[in-house]
């Protein structure tokens, strides 16, 4: 049998059998769908957050005889500040100073299984679990003090790790705790601290990880040095589906300092004592390998057409009233290219086979799912594989982390007893990471005689945004092996969170509206989760259309949005952003200037975010500078306001980069944007100048994730500002200098 192609699952491949598994899954529709965090979609016990899956209190919190506490989370620090936020939550409810807490993050040997650290769910899942667990632990300790002292618990208070009461009663947590005291299941309800009494939560506590990161501390998996550690590098095929036809590795094996060349089918790696030797050996090995490639990629210049021509599985996700208008005011095709996560540090892992046990240090977003995938890949029992999270560079979704974990494990298996560190090269990360999928969204809308929206239709085309481990076939190494695993089935994440159709249902109140998700089971380029999934393009499409409709109706874009909204929290962020920007009294922009406004509630379930901004465009070059941004967010109860600001500012800058600069480049065979020259991202000269973030206080309301709230609104606000400056509606991303220059040259239509 021919070796199946890795990613481009053509109809041909399905017919000749290599895609049979996929077809079987495809036919089952969304029944096999999973959630983006890997958590069960239906509650098991009705307990808060991740306590529902892991109810034992001492799985989350342990108190030592000295009264210090260790907190366990299944979530991982990805640079989003979760470590600090979770410590704040625990300190607040335990009534223990932050300095007496330690936090253990994602480790299959020690922490609860919280699936993937993804989807802006971490504070909601783990923060809620830890907050409730901590409150219950505190109450148990107070109860124990009451039992021992005979004092009524109403007369006892917990503070600074001590339970105190009348007549000088004072019992430290360390004295009160015993082996079994916390080995109980959580109760459904907890006595939570009133937000008015917070002393640690809702405070801008400085991040605990930053000092090491700015002083050269060992902060990342890339910085780990284990005794006896050696360095591995991988030689990847030149393109998806390339077949290795010849290789004489002899000369590389004979290189001084090279310990081993590892080959398993088309999986090729080198191991050397020194890192630079490993790199030289990798390069040499690459020149010795001969590959047969096929031209199987779509035409990059006609990507939207290529995507829309693929077979689809359609789901109607919204259908109200009579959305089939006799004539639409607007009918626009929006599209985005494939986008790279573009982590600044290429993916890295260290694996160590000791006897019959494999340990992998990895910056994966899901230690448990990766553990299962590696167990499958290595044919080892899962309990013999341990995955320990160690920080990497920011990932913004699934980058090469899991694949690098598999690469390291494959090499470590070939060299038992020595820890093997593998780091990808820049060109490997840029060519092989699972990209944020290219997508198309068509929005049709009609205005009624009253100037309100009378009909609305949204169609979105996208491949899967969820190809994370679990199945070994999600890993590159598993696909390259001599006996390859079948490609993993494409996962269509279901509503209400959605995948490609995330945020395709407008939050606006529309009497006649339809939205259809055209899920593409095929994957022309390798893709998976990237910040906000389909939300970025869907919000871009919806908010561009709202802006255009307002203009056609002769209404102010902010007022036009407000008249179509009922959600008070949505209205509050819009009003706040508009006021802080001084939207109503904005002066007429100078030549080349423009204003843009946009809004979304991420997933229609998480944080609300509205953005107003101003741009200055140089008409001759198309160079756009964002001169001012005012954002307003509502993330429910805030744990760390500076952390929320940091996330929103980051989202604004990252989305500016996506929107103005980015797109994966390829020819019919290969990914060609394999470095920062071919895949440019925003540099300092183009950073938005004044960025203000306003947080709407919502004490006591549930936590809402903030990490992905700004991307959609920022992209759309940029498009709307370009429309304002040029008179042209740009719908094909990226809105790069050449497209902006053309827009500025074309005579604007009558407004």
């Amino acid at each position, binding site marked *: 049998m021919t070796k199946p192609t890795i990613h481009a699952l053509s109809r041909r491949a399905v017919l000749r059998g290599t895609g049979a598994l996929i077809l079987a899954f495809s036919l089952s529709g969304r029944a096999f769908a999973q959630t983006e965090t890997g958590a069960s979609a239906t509650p098991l016990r009705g307990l808060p957050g991740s306590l529902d899956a892991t109810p034992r209190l001492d799985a989350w919190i342990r108190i030592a005889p000295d009264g210090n506490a260790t907190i366990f989370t299944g979530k991982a620090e990805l640079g989003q500040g979760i470590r600090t936020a979770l410590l704040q939550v625990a300190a607040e409810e335990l009534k223990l100073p932050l300095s007496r807490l330690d936090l253990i993050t994602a480790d299959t040997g020690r922490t609860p299984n919280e699936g993937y650290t993804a989807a802006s769910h971490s504070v909601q899942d783990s923060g809620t679990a830890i907050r409730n667990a901590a409150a219950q632990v505190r109450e148990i300790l107070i109860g124990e003090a009451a039992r021992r002292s005979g004092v009524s618990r109403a007369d006892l208070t917990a503070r600074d790790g001590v339970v105190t009461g009348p007549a000088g009663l004072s019992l430290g947590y360390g004295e009160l705790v015993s082996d079994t005291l916390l080995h109980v299941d959580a109760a459904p309800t907890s006595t939570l601290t009133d937000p008015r009494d917070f002393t640690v939560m809702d405070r801008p506590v400085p991040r605990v*990880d930053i000092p090491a990161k*700015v*002083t050269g501390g060992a902060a990342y998996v890339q910085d780990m040095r284990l005794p006896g550690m050696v360095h591995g590098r991988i030689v990847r095929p030149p393109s998806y589906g390339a077949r290795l036809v010849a290789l004489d590795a002899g000369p590389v094996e004979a290189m001084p300092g090279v310990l081993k060349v590892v080959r398993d089918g088309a999986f090729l790696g080198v191991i050397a004592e020194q890192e630079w030797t490993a790199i030289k050996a990798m390069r040499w090995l690459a020149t010795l390998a001969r590959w047969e490639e096929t031209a199987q990629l779509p035409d990059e210049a006609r990507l939207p057409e290529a995507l829309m021509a693929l077979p689809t599985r359609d789901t109607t996700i919204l259908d109200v009233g009579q959305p089939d208008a006799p004539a639409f005011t607007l009918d626009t095709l929006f599209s985005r290219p494939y986008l790279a996560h573009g982590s600044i*540090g290429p993916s890295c892992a260290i694996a160590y086979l000791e006897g019959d046990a494999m340990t992998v240090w990895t910056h994966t977003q899901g230690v448990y799912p990766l553990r299962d995938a590696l167990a499958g890949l290595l044919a080892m029992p899962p309990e013999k594989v341990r995955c320990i999270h160690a920080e990497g560079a920011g990932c*913004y979704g699934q980058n090469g982390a899991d694949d690098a974990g598999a690469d390291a494990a494959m090499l470590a298996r070939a060299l038992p007893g020595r820890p093997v560190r593998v780091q990808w090269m820049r060109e490997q990360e840029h060519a092989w990471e699972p990209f944020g999928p290219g997508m198309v969204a068509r929005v049709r809308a009609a205005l009624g005689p009253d100037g309100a929206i009378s009909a609305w239709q949204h169609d979105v085309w996208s491949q899967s945004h969820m190809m994370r481990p679990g199945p070994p076939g999600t890993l590159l190494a598993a696909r390259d092996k001599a006996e390859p695993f079948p490609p993993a089935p494409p996962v269509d994440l279901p509503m209400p969170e959605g995948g490609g159709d995330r945020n395709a249902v407008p939050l606006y109140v529309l009497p006649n509206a339809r939205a259809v998700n055209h899920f593409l089971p095929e994957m022309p380029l390798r893709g998976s989760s990237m910040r906000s999934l389909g939300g970025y393009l869907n919000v871009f499409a919806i908010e561009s259309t709202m802006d255009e409709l307002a203009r056609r109706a002769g209404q102010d874009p902010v007022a036009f949005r407000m008249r179509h909204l009922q959600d008070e929290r949505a209205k509050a962020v819009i009003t706040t952003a508009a006021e802080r920007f001084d939207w109503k009294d904005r002066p007429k922009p100078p030549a080349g200037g423009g204003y843009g406004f946009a809004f979304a509630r991420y997933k229609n379930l998480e944080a609300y975010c509205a953005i107003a901004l101003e741009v200055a465009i140089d008409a001759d070059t198309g160079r756009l500078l964002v001169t001012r941004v005012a954002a307003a967010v509502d993330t429910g109860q805030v744990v760390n306001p500076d952390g929320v600001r940091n996330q929103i*500012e*980051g989202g604004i800058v990252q989305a500016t980069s996506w929107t103005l600069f980015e797109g994966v480049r390829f020819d019919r065979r290969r990914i060609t944007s394999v470095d920062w020259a071919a895949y440019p991202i925003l540099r300092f000269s183009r950073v938005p100048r004044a960025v203000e973030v306003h947080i709407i206080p919502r004490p006591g309301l549930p936590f809402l994730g903030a990490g992905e709230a700004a991307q959609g609104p920022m992209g759309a606000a940029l498009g709307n500002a370009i429309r304002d400056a040029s008179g042209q509606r740009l719908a094909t991303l990226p809105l790069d200098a050449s497209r902006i220059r053309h827009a500025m040259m074309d005579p604007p239509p009558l407004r």
Partner: protein
Amino acid sequence: MITFTVNGTRRTIAAAPDTPLLYVLRGELELNGAKFGCGLGQCGACTVLVDGEPVFSCITPVMLLDERTVRTIEGLGSADAPGPVQAAFIAEQAAQCGYCIAGMVMRAQALLERDGDPDDDAILAALEPSLCRCGTHVRIVRAVKRAARTMAGKPMAGKVEAVR
């Protein structure tokens, strides 16, 4: 044998002369600050100072450093006693993942040693070779301004204003 000064200490290096400085710093000398980002001189994650000037250590062969002076972020201070630029980055919480930050700090250090009162354009130009994917730019610029004030003996109490 190549000998140079790293953070004030003379070191003699065993590595082959064509080895890029980055691998000598991270390997033989076990310093974490300089990071591998691209190995191509495109991202600045590996930035260190050679005789006070920022260089991409990933593309600088160690043989070019004989008898020269190298400074890495470890040489500016420690978590307990951070130098003024490091302290300013902590005060502004100017990091998300932080992987780019050591390179940013080194570029800021070189700038501020040359120009004690840089304007916005000078700060942006000095940082232009360094990439940040998390979008921490706004805070990084604020941190550089804060460090400039500290180094000029006029430390600031509250937060600095945004970039103009």
